[in-house]
């Protein structure tokens, strides 16, 4: 005699057959509410982000750092805060920054926008001395080979076409070996090339800020000492922002503003939707396990149900 499905089972069955667009609505609401009503949940830092932050803190005024925009608009909400936080930290420490972009699908536009936004916050910076934007270049792997010997081979001019010989910042820097750190905000493969090609062959320390989708892979490179730090996705960016504001309280005027998008504020929406998705997975699996248990009672032979397969 089949076990009669309880009210709970009927409810679960009903929710499972709901149109998927109700779930889409639930997702939209879970993201919109924290934007309209910010919660301000705490952020805890992890060792991979702390080691990145502390390494940049060891740089001395006048050192040259390298920032590479290897992502596109499709991952800007995760990577922009990383690039902005790194630039603010360098400019506060009087570290000079060379900016390039190697991601074809939109890297250059983001480099221009982020640089314009941050240099507006530090009015006394001089283009060509404190920072320079060398723009985009095709053939990322070939560009990195040239950076190992002679930067001018790959980037003869800056983003506006001016020969790089004119810029004092590059006078002491002939190739990437003399750069103190390369920070790559990355989405796909190009970020990995900095580790397995530039660091492996030229030794320049690399910090990577990957999207959350590609972050798990970089724990293997972090363990092997091929990286000096990593910011994993939006959470990594929020951790870096927390460390930055703790060390440099004067940055609160940028991070405090209500309208400015920061990774820390984004984490509110992340938390709400993480909770919703965890509940959805639990609910879905409870319904699945109960229906499978019920079916096992009815099929004495314990054969495979229509949707089930061998356990």
């Amino acid at each position, binding site marked *: 005699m089949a076990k009669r499905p309880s009210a709970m089972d009927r409810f679960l069955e009903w929710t499972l057959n709901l149109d998927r667009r109700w779930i889409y609505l639930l997702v939209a609401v879970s993201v919109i509410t924290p934007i309209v009503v910010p919660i301000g949940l705490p952020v805890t830092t992890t060792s991979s982000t702390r080691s990145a932050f502390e390494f940049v803190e060891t740089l001395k005024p006048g050192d040259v750092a390298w920032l590479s925009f290897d992502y596109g608009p499709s991952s800007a909400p995760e990577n922009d805060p990383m690039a902005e936080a790194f630039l603010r930290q360098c400019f506060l420490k009087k570290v000079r920054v060379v900016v390039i972009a190697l991601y074809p699908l939109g890297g250059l536009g983001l480099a221009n926008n982020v640089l314009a936004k941050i240099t507006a916050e530090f009015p006394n910076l001089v283009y060509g001395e404190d920072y320079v934007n060398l723009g985009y270049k095709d053939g990322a792997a070939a560009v990195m080979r040239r950076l190992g010997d002679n930067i001018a081979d790959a980037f003869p001019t800056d983003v506006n076409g001016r020969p790089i010989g004119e810029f004092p910042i590059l006078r002491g820097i002939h190739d990437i070996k003399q750069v103190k750190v390369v920070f790559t905000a990355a989405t796909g493969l190009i970020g990995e090339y900095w580790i397995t090609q530039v660091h492996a062959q030229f030794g320049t320390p690399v910090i990577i800020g990957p999207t959350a989708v590609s972050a798990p892979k970089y724990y293997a490179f972090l363990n092997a000492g091929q990286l000096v730090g990593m910011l994993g996705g939006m959470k990594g960016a929020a951790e870096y922002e927390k460390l930055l504001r703790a060390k440099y309280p004067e940055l609160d005027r940028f991070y405090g503003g209500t309208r400015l998008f920061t990774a820390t504020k984004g984490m509110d929406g992340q938390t709400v939707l993480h909770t919703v998705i965890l509940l959805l997975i639990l609910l879905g699996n409870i319904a699945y396990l109960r229906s499978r248990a019920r079916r096992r009672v009815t099929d004495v032979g314990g054969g495979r149900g229509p*949707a089930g397969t061998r356990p």
Partner: protein
Amino acid sequence: MRWATRFRLLAVLSALAGSAAWAATSSSAPVPANLVARDNPGDSGGAILLTWTPADSGSLPSDSIHIFRAEAPAFEWKQLAATTPSAGRYVDQTAAAGHVYRYELRSGGISAAVSEPASSRDNWFRNERANSLIATIIFLIAVLGSIAMARSGKPLFIRKIAGLNAVDEAIGRATETGKKVLYVPGIQSMDDIQTVASVSVLGHVARATARYGTDLDVANRDPLTFASARETVRSAYLAEGRPDLYREEMVNYVTYDQFAFVAAVSARMVRERPATIFLIGHFFAESLILAETGQSVGAIQIAGQADPTQLPFFVATCDYTLIGEELFAASAYLSREPVLLGSIRGQDIFKALCLIVGIVGIVMASFGNNWVAQVLLTR
């Protein structure tokens, strides 16, 4: 070559690499002495290596020493750099190739040591990368040797991947219920090796559906993949002697737009409720709609992809997933193509060597000798 002999060869060669990379440094002396200047080894020229017996800084007037350089023929001394006496070595990166230089160490104004003339030149081998070259040579021997063996007709063994049993079982289920089999070979073109592997798995599936007379439907997004999938299915039905069962519209081209393709195929799943769905090839995140719809129509789903980004979702939604290299092993097992069989065997040999070197290294490290880890580090 049997593994035992290959292992002895590796041990000898890496010992050679170990000694070449490490020059012993002598003990310290009161004043930095016998300064030697010579071409920096293993580079493209333009650098001169200075080595001197390091002095303990206590016995010197100032705690740092200054390096001076004089270029032939004038030989007037110019300050080059400053370093600590205990360093024992310094590399002058600014020495133009072919020019002759002499170097002098001065501490607190008094000259401590002067070197013979030296000039930099380009060298034939970067000895710091000997380990990487040896590993590459061993890899070449393993892979090219295995491919040559496979091409010479020697039958190479590949174990049957568990996934292929799942494939046959899933087609059996479709035959039982009389419903169709839907196959999606990924959304990339034939220049993606995962699509090539998927088409060879499709050949196996088509032969099974030809044998059992099950209805087959192959939905394509890329024109090139569509052409080679149609060719594969037609020859599979011929090989099984059932050309009569082959229908032109079995292999069809849906559309090129990524999201439109996914929406159209999931609508087809809901309409025709296939018993078995194969999602094998290179997919991107929107493939979640396919896996979810397939699950909701109660189909058995077999997925397969080499690049790991989609694998977590396929494992969570599908009944069986070919993971990473398994997809290529499956296509090698099915196609018996000598080059594929040889490559997989060559890679396995090198993986076995990595395991052996790793375990030997761990045993030695456990007894305090960290030499293997140092040998493996690349610069």
